């Protein structure tokens, strides 16, 4: 792990755990229609690593990510980002935390259409009124191959380029953690592979903690570790995943999940 570009945070917050969920419960709706999206989910995200979260539809993987990212509140349990307990924060504090300490890459509609690529990249910084670190931005842009696309509007970029701009935007404030929600879902396989390659590169070479939610085993295989969710709980953990190992774990998970639903 080369730390050629030093993270802004002191090393102790970069300890083994970047984020943590402890017995998190999230319930949607009330009474008979209530759905327990998260039902005692616990998870630790190790710092400087690339973690994939997988699970069938309705397993709560997106909800867990939203909770970890401070996009949503939880009904019980604790969510920690570094030493910060997100469940104790108000809406405004969570917003500030998101723009200071968290990066996002969504499946689609990652960019503000009226801003150019470079403006989108520095958006969280400008919203916070911070000066971007130009050398860092330049390096991100160069690594992601966006140098000749900076002045373009999102509509003038290909899908792959748009997602790479989104990744640059997520990394620009040097967040403690980057969440990617199906980042390759709308890309063709070549563009998807390039993006996943870069995410892995960011984790390994830039010590960036990354959490990716996906249902695609090929995408998850790029991660250092895969966490499986079912029925609102973490049910399995697979280090050093490969496509075949992922597929076999998924097969064993799917069957009981289906049985339970019936």
């Amino acid at each position, binding site marked *: 792990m080369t730390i050629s570009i030093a993270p802004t945070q002191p090393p102790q917050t970069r300890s083994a755990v970047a984020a943590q969920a402890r017995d998190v419960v999230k319930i949607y709706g009330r009474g008979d229609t209530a759905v327990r999206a998260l039902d005692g989910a616990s998870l630790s995200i190790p710092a400087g690593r690339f973690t994939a979260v997988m699970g069938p539809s309705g397993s709560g993987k997106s909800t867990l990510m*939203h909770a970890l990212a401070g*996009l949503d509140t939880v009904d019980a349990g604790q969510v920690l980002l570094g030493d910060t307990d997100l469940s104790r924060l108000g809406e*405004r504090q969570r917003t500030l935390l998101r723009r200071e300490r968290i990066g996002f890459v969504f499946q689609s509609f990652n960019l*503000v*259409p*009226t*801003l150019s690529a470079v403006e989108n990249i520095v958006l*969280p910084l400008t*919203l916070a009124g911070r000066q971007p670190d130009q050398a860092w931005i330049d390096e991100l842009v160069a690594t992601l191959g966006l140098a000749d696309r900076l002045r373009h509007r999102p509509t003038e970029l290909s899908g792959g380029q748009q997602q790479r701009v989104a990744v640059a935007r997520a990394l620009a404030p040097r967040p403690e953690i980057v969440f990617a929600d199906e980042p390759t879902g709308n890309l063709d396989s070549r563009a998807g592979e390039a993006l996943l390659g870069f995410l892995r590169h960011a984790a390994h070479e830039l010590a960036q903690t990354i959490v990716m939610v996906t249902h695609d085993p090929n995408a998850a295989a790029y991660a250092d570790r895969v966490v499986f969710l079912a029925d609102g709980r973490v049910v399995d953990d697979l280090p050093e995943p490969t496509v075949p190992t992922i597929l076999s774990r998924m097969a064993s998970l799917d069957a009981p999940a289906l049985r339970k639903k019936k």
Partner: protein
Amino acid sequence: MWRLTIRNTLARRARLALTLLAVVLGVTFVTGSLILTDTSQRLLDDQFRTATAGVDLTVRDAAAFDSAMGVEVERDPLPATIVDRIRAVPGVATARPLVRGQGLLSVGGKAIVPSGASVLASWEPAPVGAFSLRAGHPPVTDDELVVDAETALRRHIDLGDTVTVRAEQTTSLRIVGLAGFGDGPGLPNSTVGLVNLPTAQRLLKLGGDVSEVAVVAADGVDTQQLRGRVSAVLGPGYEVSASRDIAASSAAAAKTQVDYLQMMLFALAAAALLVGAFLIANTFSIVITQRTRELAVLRAAGATGAQVLGSVLGEALLVGVTASVAGTGLGVATAAGLRNLAGAFGIALPDGGLVVAPRTAIVAFAIGVGVTIVSAIGPARRAAAVAPVEAMRSAAAPSGRIRTVTGWIVTALGVTALIAVLAGTGSLALVGAAALSGVVGLTLLGPALTPGLARIMGRPLDAAGVPGRLARESAARAPRRTAATALALAFGLALISFMTVLATSIKDSVQQTYTEVISADYVIESARNEMLGGLPNHVHHHVSELPEVAVASRLRYGHWKDGQATDALTAVDPVTLPRVTSLHMVAGNLNAISGGGIILAERVARERHLAIGDSLPMTFSRTGTQRLPVVGLLRDRDAQALSTNYVISLDTFSRHYKENVDASVFVKVADGVSDAAAKKAINAALADAPTAQLRDQAAAVAGRTLMIDQVLGLVTALLMLTILIALMGITNTLALSIIERTREIGLLRAVGMTSGQLRWMIRGEAVLVAGLAIALGVSLGIAFAAGTVAALGRTAELALVVPPGRLLLVVAVAALAGLLAGLLPARRAAKLDVLTAIATS
């Protein structure tokens, strides 16, 4: 398809609510105006018909015309002996002498000054007289008075009270009765004093003469034939008219004063509807843009383009009909309020039961439904053009090339016309044409110009960081929407700025010419803004005899007919006038009018190709057509200070007019007398003329510009309604734009935009739209005011004056209102749930 249309409309009722409100307000305005003017006219008709209900013929002194500029002419009195001659005509059942004039009532030393007339008349029992006793008994002896029940109620006058009547003579009389008029307790905005015939003659100094003779035909006698017979007996010096005709012509004269208010209200209703039309078109096009996918599905399912068009227009029809129903109802409710508003600004209208003619409802519906449907045609056609396979389409439809080019051409035509007017070669009609093409041209050009303008105007928003930038870009990115929203507000603001600049220019020039020409220390004028002044003639007499006064010179106004048109003239005293004014004669001299001649304003002489030695044919009510020799030419500014373009002597005036009231008395204080002493002495001399007011120069100018202030006040108050509609447009547009940009807002919130920043982004856009409207509206207003001033300047002394203070006030109010308009949508955007916003596809 029809059921789908209804379901669609209901499903979007919140979204259409504001559109609905815009149409409702426009229709309310139209309905209210129609009802108000219908009611005023009906009341006037009723009043004059009631006045002559029991009379068949009326005999008066002959006159060349009945009324001018809404004022009935005064006629010479008739000798009382005529009554017996009329009675002798076969077929006459009754002939009654009547006396009628002006008599101001005072109670407990306080004069009652109504906004209308102070009627003093001889009592005449029904059926000839229109007044009927409500209490007490008729005036029999010379010290008895009957007043109308309405005035008695308002002024707490009871039977047995003493009331002073000021006519040509002043007398205190005892109240012996209260009278009603027709069904009502009195005449609108008037006081009525009824005395016996000899008292009326004495108070009005008529000697034994009477004002007119009322004739009732015997049963079975044809009125027209009787009229011929009476006319033949009396000879050409008298006018015998069917009372019905007199009622009609009196009502028509009174109505001309209502007409201009109606014109004004209609113009304002048109402005409100124009602004409303923008809002409607905007809402429909946004709703349709949002429904593109749904429409595509409809088309894919086999709906034809015509069906889609019909569905959207059907929606517009529903909105239009609903709004028209509500607007008509509200219009009925607001008509009375509108009357009070006009009253608050000094424009008195008769009060009484509201008249809702079927025509009012028809017009209201035609306009409400028509405007809605016409506004929806553009969006509906775009909806029909949605291709079945179209899943998504680019956010901004490219603005049409033809539209832009046409817009440039039309705008250029308007600008050329305006420049021609400013260069001094255009008429008022050309200004109107320029304004029309300006409105049309800018409407067409709007979408093409908006992105650039929004980016330039939005520069200051960059100071607010990303939210400001995004606000600017959002406005620039949806040019059609931004343009329509901003234009709606701009036109409202343009009208207000136009009125403000024009009124200020006129007031300023009135003040300038007045202070330049009139050198008098004081002027005495009637506090009631009557057409001819209405200052009792003894005022001049009393004031000129004061030792503190060096000279008092009076002015009178009169109407005359110039072919079909009516014009006014001023009568002056050529001996004293030069001592209170500094007149500049271009040719001849003022004294020459003593010989019966006339002095013309220089411009009038030029237009009529008249020079000294020529003569001008003028028709007077009393003396018919006379040729007056032109004896001098007066500088235009000076003529304007004397209020007319035609100046004759007071002697000439008394030959042609019966009217015996002064318009103004100019006073020069004697040397060595202090202002305070002079004021005190003059005010003491005015004690028996309660309506007379002593004014210094500033007050005199204010009196002359009062009417302008009244109209400006009323128009501005009503134009605020247009602004309100336009602001609702901003709210509506932003609310819809937020729905459109839900995902973008979700993204911004996810990456760290605080709800405060988001709120400022939305408010910033609102203020930017308002800013665009302000820049455009105020410059349009000033430009067209300049054009109007230039066009009017060809026939009057007028220079453009732009009041920075008042315009800045308009700008500040509009900007603040823009901010307010953004509050609701901003709050709504800030409340959007981040997750839901991200998840929205």
